[in-house]
């Protein structure tokens, strides 16, 4: 939409871009580049590390595997998200909130616990195989894990919410009359989906797909634990080169190539399918949103419901078995447990270190959410007001933290912050997390601003409101869901991070994930499962309470 260039509307572009831009330069560009430049040689300039990458075939093949798996996961996540988003858009508000809870719960479970639960479910004599063989569908155990399917299951499980939410938003913007028009012209359910629903919900998919793809590239815990050697991903290699081999120049070379490959793909993608190309509606009075009429659901709709139920079961399965697992008494995990006890819960509450770590993680996450929401919203506002020419470049820059392997950022930040003494204090970790979390807020608020009607802004300003007042009373309520979504992602990014915590904390400032990973090289302390269960319970209570409150408000 064309806007008057400088209509004195009270929000200068620099105000939006500068805060996060500054953070990126100081806390991201400097540490990351200082490490990446090692790729070109520690003493003088050399390309020997890049040569090694090219000459030794295993690295090319790992890079290919990484991109391939990330792509597959994105496709799977999209396929699984469609039925769920469709159902969410066409059921009543309470069912919808329940589904939303279902979609978000996997988020709140630590990656380590989730993967452990999946392994227990999918191993040779795990629950799934027992069901399959017991019902006679198979005669020998199927290998679901320690191979490609294991990685795909694990990664899709955790990354789906990033697509479901924007896709659901796209569905809510779909108008019922558009679908009915197609039907009246003779389109059957499949044609309606293929030619109307799919193209019109595509922008939602694109936004979420980008996040999923870039996240997937950096995964290494899930592939390490649930995949086989054929699924080694590049983040594992980068991490091992940094941590164990101490071959930083080579790790930097790997990371540089990864970065270049991803940024190029991102730039191409932005150009053709980018956030710019959200399709606007076709005029006339606004119609009814997409919903189910008294006619009931088409067979396609029922098929979608069945699919959505399967997807829902997929999402919730590991979360459910985590509860009985936490009540097992043996330090070796099994489902169902042979004997029950509350040992691990006692351990959690009894040992101060657990509760302290949980408190610490919550504090940090709280700070991170507060800061990144401000930075991200400002950035989104700034970008929205930019001239179109530079917009996608700035957008790409603002989401770079999502695609740089976290360990590189962690090491770089250590070198940067050690002299300042912030390492070991709550602020070192917080700053590191802010860099990681803000891009999520930026993306969600940016999307929310897109659907904000600019005329409302003009109307308010025309009536005499200052820009700040207009923002507070008109714009903010409208983009609040986008901010909330971003805040959720930011919280989780901070709450679940291990690597930055590993480098930027010490024993006094230990976070929960760091505690969970202690000793994991040797054993898995079931106390972490108890911890996860508690977190899930609290989340369900908080969100459930919110649900009940909102219901009362609308009646």
């Amino acid at each position: 939409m064309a806007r008057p260039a400088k209509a004195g509307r009270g929000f200068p572009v620099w105000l939006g871009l500068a805060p996060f831009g500054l953070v990126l330069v100081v806390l991201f560009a400097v540490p990351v580049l200082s490490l990446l430049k090692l790729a070109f040689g520690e003493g003088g300039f050399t390309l020997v590390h890049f040569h090694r990458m090219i000459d030794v075939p295993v690295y090319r093949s790992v890079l290919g595997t990484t991109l391939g798996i990330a792509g597959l996961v994105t496709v799977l996540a999209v396929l699984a998200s469609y039925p769920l988003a469709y159902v969410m858009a066409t059921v009543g508000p309470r069912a919808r909130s329940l589904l939303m809870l279902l979609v978000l719960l996997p988020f709140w479970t630590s990656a380590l616990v989730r993967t452990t639960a999946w392994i227990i479910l999918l191993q040779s004599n795990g629950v799934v195989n027992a069901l399959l063989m017991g019902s006679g569908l198979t005669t020998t155990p199927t290998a679901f894990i320690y191979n490609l399917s294991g990685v795909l299951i694990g990664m899709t499980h955790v990354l789906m919410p990033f697509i479901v939410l924007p896709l659901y938003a796209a569905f809510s913007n779909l108008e019922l009359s558009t679908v009915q028009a197609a039907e009246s012209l003779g389109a059957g359910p499949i044609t309606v989906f293929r030619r109307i629903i799919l193209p019109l919900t595509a922008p939602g998919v694109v936004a979420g797909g980008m996040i999923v793809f870039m996240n997937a590239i950096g995964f290494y815990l899930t592939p390490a634990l649930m995949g086989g050697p054929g699924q080694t991903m590049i983040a594992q290699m980068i991490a091992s080169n940094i941590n164990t081999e101490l071959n930083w120049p080579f790790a930097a070379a790997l990371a540089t190539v990864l970065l270049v490959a991803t940024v190029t793909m991102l730039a191409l993608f932005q150009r053709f399918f980018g956030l710019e190309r959200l399709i606007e509606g076709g005029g006339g009075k606004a119609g009814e949103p997409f919903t189910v009429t008294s006619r009931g659901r088409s067979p396609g709709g029922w098929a979608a419901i069945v699919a959505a139920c399967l997807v829902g079961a997929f999402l919730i399965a590991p979360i459910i078995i985590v509860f009985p697992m936490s009540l097992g008494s043996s330090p070796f995990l099994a489902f169902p447990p042979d004997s029950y006890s509350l040992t691990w819960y006692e351990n959690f509450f009894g040992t101060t270190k657990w509760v302290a770590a949980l408190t610490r993680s919550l504090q940090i996450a709280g700070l991170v959410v507060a800061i990144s929401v401000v930075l991200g919203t400002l950035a989104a506002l700034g970008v929205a007001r930019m001239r179109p020419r530079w917009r996608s470049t700035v957008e790409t820059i603002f989401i770079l933290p999502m695609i740089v392997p976290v360990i590189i950022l962690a090491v770089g930040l250590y070198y940067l912050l050690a002299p300042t003494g912030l390492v070991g204090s709550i602020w070192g970790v917080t700053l590191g997390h802010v860099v990681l979390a803000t891009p999520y807020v930026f993306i969600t608020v940016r999307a929310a601003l897109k659907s904000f009607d600019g005329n409302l802004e003009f109307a308010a300003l025309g009536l005499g409101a200052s820009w700040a007042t207009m923002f507070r009373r008109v714009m903010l309520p409208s983009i609040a869901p986008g901010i909330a979504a971003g805040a959720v992602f930011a919280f989780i990014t901070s709450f679940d991070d291990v690597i930055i915590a590993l480098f930027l904390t010490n024993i006094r400032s230990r976070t929960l994930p760091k505690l969970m990973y202690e000793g994991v090289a040797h054993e898995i302390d079931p106390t972490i499962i108890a911890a996860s269960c508690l977190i899930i319970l609290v989340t369900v209570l908080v969100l459930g309470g919110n649900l009940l409150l909102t219901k009362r408000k609308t009646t």
Partner: protein
Amino acid sequence: MNISALGKAVSIQSLGKSYGSTRALDGVSLNIAAGEFCTLLGASGSGKTTLLKTIAGFETYETGQILVDGVDVGPMPVSKRNIGMVFQNYALFPHMSVRRNVAFGLEMRRLAAKEIENRVDEVLALVDLTAYAERLPRQLSGGQQQRVALARALVIRPDILLMDEPLGALDKNLRQSIQLELKRLHAAVGATVVYVTHDQEEALFLSDRIALMDKGRIVQASTPRGLYEKPANRFVASFLGECNFIPSDGQEIAIRPEKLRVGRDLPGCDKKLEGHVTAVNFIGRGFRVMLDHRGAELAAEVDASDEIAALRVGTPVAFGFRSTDAMDIASI
């Protein structure tokens, strides 16, 4: 014009539908002849849109049946009914050009590409949008979008053309010019049209028949003239145009404002009465004079004249009408 698809007759029999405890359609029966332009007229909540949607198949009903050309369409899915529908918000496919929008229905019917191209060109010429064929909906004005919606519905040669308040979003001049076009198209194409509107002027202008609805029932169905000159009851009389109800011997005489004469000279009027002027307004085609007659407020529309122009508020004045012009309605 080559697009001659004579529409089919529609027979609605005792249709009933409830939304929870509300009766959305309460025993609705209506016969629409083939090629007829039938308007469903009523206020919001009267059930007119619900009735249209049940004919289209977007809503279910509990009792009664709908026959198209003698065939019960109840069990038929929407996509098989060969109806053309124009929605209130046009519902153009935003990601397709005008041409692709119009061609959609033909593609669903699996016509050959050449045939599709010909028919699309033909109908675009009919609605005068040939120059805009490659544009996207968001690049068109409201009136243009409306015409695309119409073209898209017509090109498939529908048995019935259903239109749900299609002109509601347009300004008055545009609305009138499109109304003219609609009439012209209907004459040329001969489709059966079921048209929903709350605007009674529009209904009077466009329709062969009008079914006036209220609270899920058809109050009266007749030709525009029939409804206007012989309203079945007070509700109908007030809905279509204005109506005066003059108290007289415990009864009320219903008479249209344009049938009242005001002034000293009341040619042809066998009924003469007295009243006071409460307002005099020039409305272009004449004057609108508001009178008070024994406490009842009456409106009269009369030709312009110096005498009328000179009337002042409060002036006692004589008025009258022809008793044959009084409408005989049952008072409810």
